[in-house]
């Protein structure tokens, strides 16, 4: 009986893993194919002049190292200022975040600062965003985390998709700003490339479910208010919102050209804290939405399948661990009821080879399309983040299950620390390009430096003159 249960478990987990393998390859091949089409025929931009009013929400808690950089950048955006409202939610900061934001509010009348103190403060990002939503007047709500640094024309790129009434939310691309800092930031940058350039873009072009990432993205205010704002009871409020948008009959669009730089976590400890929060949040969303996704009439079959796979994504490292735990004793015991030895070994060989390669190839092709020749050499090291994620996700699942069993919804929001180390790469980049030499910028070759300048640098005219 035990062997039969183990075999059944093994078959289910193997099927799941193989499904993800196929998905990874499908996404990679789709992007490669699309890239060739784009080269042959660039997409026409029919909605270039659609400019709705926007409210930018910036939740910030102890972000004095980075908030000034973002707020300054907001003032440089090319979107018409009369259509912009900026709401900074100072969520009980004990540093100078509030004071810096107040300074900007004095200089620019489209800035509003919300100071949250006492019991209302520090209850997580969703809570802070809801406080900002109460004051928002724009048709579209755009969210930025305090450590982000957007392109000058990012609002134009994000908002034009809303000319389609079926679009409920949009998501832009996140790129790591402090990538050259250390091994953690370099590996996070690779993960981001795979996640956005391949995963998100492929889901968008295949008509599946691109994920609203909670930052560098926008939502229709009317829809958001109808849905009751952000759900404060889940840790992954962005993932939750993605599914609520789809269940309400709207779509999420991913715009790869709308780039924004972020300051990635700089230590393994911060990496673990951040991924643990994401994993736990996604698992909460799975339990909240899986049944609604199956029975929803607003989702087609492809969206349902992709939706379930997306909800399950942080369970995958746990399933891989389970497959090892179950598969190995099955092989050693050799007491198969339903399966013969080759049929047990073959799936293990398949998913531990092709399955393990799939994410590597996805990230590799993403890095190639991004023109990142040096980054490729770090690909084999992603095996460490994969193994680390097995540990993190297993811990998160244990926590979610304990919370479910005890009824104690312990949603402590562990905030990611931002050091402001990203500032120097922007400054270096400007200086280097102004002096005609990208190699001093600290960023990988000319390509990244150029990309940074193209996306964000303040003195773009100097840079342009320098490289042209």
């Amino acid at each position, binding site marked *: 009986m035990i062997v039969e249960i183990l075999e059944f478990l093994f078959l289910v987990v193997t099927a799941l893993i193989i499904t993800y393998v196929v998905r990874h390859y499908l996404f990679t091949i789709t992007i490669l194919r699309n890239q060739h089409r784009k080269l042959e025929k660039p997409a026409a931009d029919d909605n270039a002049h659609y400019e709705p009013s926007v409210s930018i929400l910036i939740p910030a808690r102890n972000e004095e190292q980075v908030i000034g950089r973002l707020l300054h950048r907001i003032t440089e955006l090319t979107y018409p200022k009369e259509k912009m409202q900026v709401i900074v939610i100072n969520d009980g900061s004990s540093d100078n975040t509030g004071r810096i934001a107040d300074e900007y509010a004095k200089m620019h009348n489209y800035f509003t600062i919300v100071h949250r103190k006492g019991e209302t403060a520090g209850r997580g990002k969703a809570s802070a965003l809801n406080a900002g939503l109460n004051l928002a007047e724009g048709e579209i709500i755009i969210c930025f985390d305090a450590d982000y640094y957007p392109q000058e024309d990012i609002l134009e790129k994000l908002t034009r998709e809303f000319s389609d009434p079926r679009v409920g939310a949009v998501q832009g691309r996140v790129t790591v700003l402090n990538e050259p800092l250390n091994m953690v930031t370099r590996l996070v940058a690779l993960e981001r490339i795979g996640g956005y350039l391949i995963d998100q873009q492929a889901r968008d072009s295949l008509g599946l479910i691109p994920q609203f990432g909670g930052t560098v993205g926008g939502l229709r205010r009317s829809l958001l208010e109808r849905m009751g704002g952000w759900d404060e009871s889940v840790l992954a409020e962005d993932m939750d919102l993605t599914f609520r948008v789809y269940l309400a009959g709207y779509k999420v669009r991913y715009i790869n050209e709308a780039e924004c730089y972020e300051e990635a976590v700089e230590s393994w400890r911060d990496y673990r804290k951040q991924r643990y929060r994401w994993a736990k949040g996604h698992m909460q969303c799975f339990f909240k939405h899986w049944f609604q996704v199956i029975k929803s009439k607003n989702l087609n079959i492809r969206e349902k399948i992709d939706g379930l796979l997306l909800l399950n994504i942080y369970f995958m490292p746990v399933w891989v661990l389970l497959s090892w735990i179950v598969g190995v004793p099955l*092989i050693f015991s050799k007491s198969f009821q339903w399966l013969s030895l080759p049929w047990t070994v073959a799936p293990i060989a398949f998913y531990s080879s092709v399955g393990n390669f799939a994410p590597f*190839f996805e990230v590799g092709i993403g890095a190639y399309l991004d*023109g990142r020749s040096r980054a490729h050499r770090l690909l084999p090291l992603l095996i460490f983040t994969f193994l680390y994620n097995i540990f993190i996700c297993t811990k998160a699942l244990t926590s979610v299950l304990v919370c479910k069993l005890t009824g104690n919804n312990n949603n402590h929001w562990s905030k990611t620390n931002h050091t402001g180390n990203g500032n120097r790469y922007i400054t270096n980049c400007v200086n280097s390009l102004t002096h005609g030499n990208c190699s001093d910028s600290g960023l990988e070759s000319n390509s990244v430096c150029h990309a940074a300048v*193209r996306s964000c640098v303040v003195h773009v005219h100097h840079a342009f003159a320098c490289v042209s």
Partner: protein
Amino acid sequence: MVDVRLRTYHMVFGISAGAMASCILLLIPYLDVESSIMLVIFNFLFVSLLFPLQGTLLKKLSLLLVGNVIGWAWNSVFSAFANDASGYFGENFEATYMIVNPFLNLVWIVSFWSLSLATMSMPRKGGAFET
């Protein structure tokens, strides 16, 4: 259209070369079945993900050939080691090797592929100020 036609032509050549290499590997009696299968998987992945990229056909075919040689050498060494060790440690080692073998291959396949990608990397357009 020239670009797309060229890549299709590369893919056709790549698939043919990969299939030929796979057949040869499967017919070599010296290599065990698991290792041969890993090399067939490598050929399939390498052709499907590298041949559609920019670069000359000669470069891609050379990389495919080098990959097969490295893979063959790698698997030959480990197969020989596994054969000797299973004689010493018994059947349990064989089972362990079956499980570990794909991970051992992961080391060279991912490394070789990532280096190949680095050599194939798209040259940045001068100035790179596409808007």
